[in-house]
């Protein structure tokens, strides 16, 4: 008798907890397959210095935020001032990955909106983007001094994400 009363109630609560935990989750945000793994080995060229090579080895030694951007990307304009401000305050090393862009368009975009990037990797056809598991722009990766991906942000970086998720991991990743 007690069982008969209790069981539906228990089932109800189990279901409620399950559904409740699903609320507020964004199913469109995928966990990165790269998390806690080294960034993919690549060798590409720099956006601002045409023909000059840059590879995954060159980025080791200091934690940084790898930011995927493009001149055609509208949401990139939302996060750009945020990234710029943190770089200007010296709190952030920012590496760019210019994704599926024309060089001329990218350079004038940077001239117009400001250029906070320490290095910019050029990926005109999106081939490098596939190795990084990028689905679009903007996306950002927190990479530690050993080149391990610690966190991934899909969509624009807000000051809140910067303070809560990115900066603590960059500090942690310095050792």
């Amino acid at each position: 008798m007690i069982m008969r009363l209790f069981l539906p109630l228990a089932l109800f609560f189990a279901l409620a907890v399950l559904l409740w935990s699903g609320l507020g989750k964004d199913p469109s945000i995928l966990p990165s397959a790269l998390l806690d793994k080294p960034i993919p080995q690549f060798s590409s060229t720099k956006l601002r210095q045409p023909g000059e090579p840059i590879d995954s080895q060159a980025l080791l030694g200091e934690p940084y935020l790898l930011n995927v951007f493009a001149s055609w990307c509208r949401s990139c304009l939302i996060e750009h001032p945020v990234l710029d401000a943190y770089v200007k305050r010296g709190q952030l090393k920012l590496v760019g990955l210019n994704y599926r862009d024309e060089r001329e368009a990218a350079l004038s975009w940077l001239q117009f909106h400001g250029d906070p990037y320490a290095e910019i990797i050029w990926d005109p056809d999106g081939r490098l983007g596939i190795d990084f598991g990028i689905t679009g722009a903007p996306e950002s990766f927190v990479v530690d001094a050993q080149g391990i991906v610690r966190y991934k942000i899909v969509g624009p970086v807000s000051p809140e994400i910067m303070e809560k998720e990115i900066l603590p991991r960059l500090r942690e990743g310095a050792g």
Partner: protein
Amino acid sequence: MRKLLIACLIPFMVLFSTALWAIDPLPFADGEQEERFRVLVAELRCVQCQNQNLADSDALIAKDLRKEIFEQMQAGRSDDEIVDFLVERYGEFVLYRPAFSGKNLLLWLGPLLIVVFGGIGVAVHLRRRAANSQPAAAAPIAEDIDW
């Protein structure tokens, strides 16, 4: 006359079928390769517009991935190798048919578990009800009721 009309319509139906539109014109080596490609892109999920497969999606990234798959096929990679390549980069999410292992087991066996436990529950319930109702049914209408 009607046959002629239908015959005229067929090219338009083919032309406007969306599945055909989304596939970029790719120079396949032969029909067999084209078929492999069609099957593969239908089974892989677009990583951006997530409720579409790679074949149907118009997203930039889907286009890039189709091109990548095509090029890997030209390079002689097998379907499994290509799928592994994508899973390594985008996670198991890209598979419309997730692997039968690890944390996916619940996904695969969940429905079966529900049917089994549900069935047991129903069986127990029915048996109990039958057991309860038997004495009641057997009990004759009291004879000493004063009609």
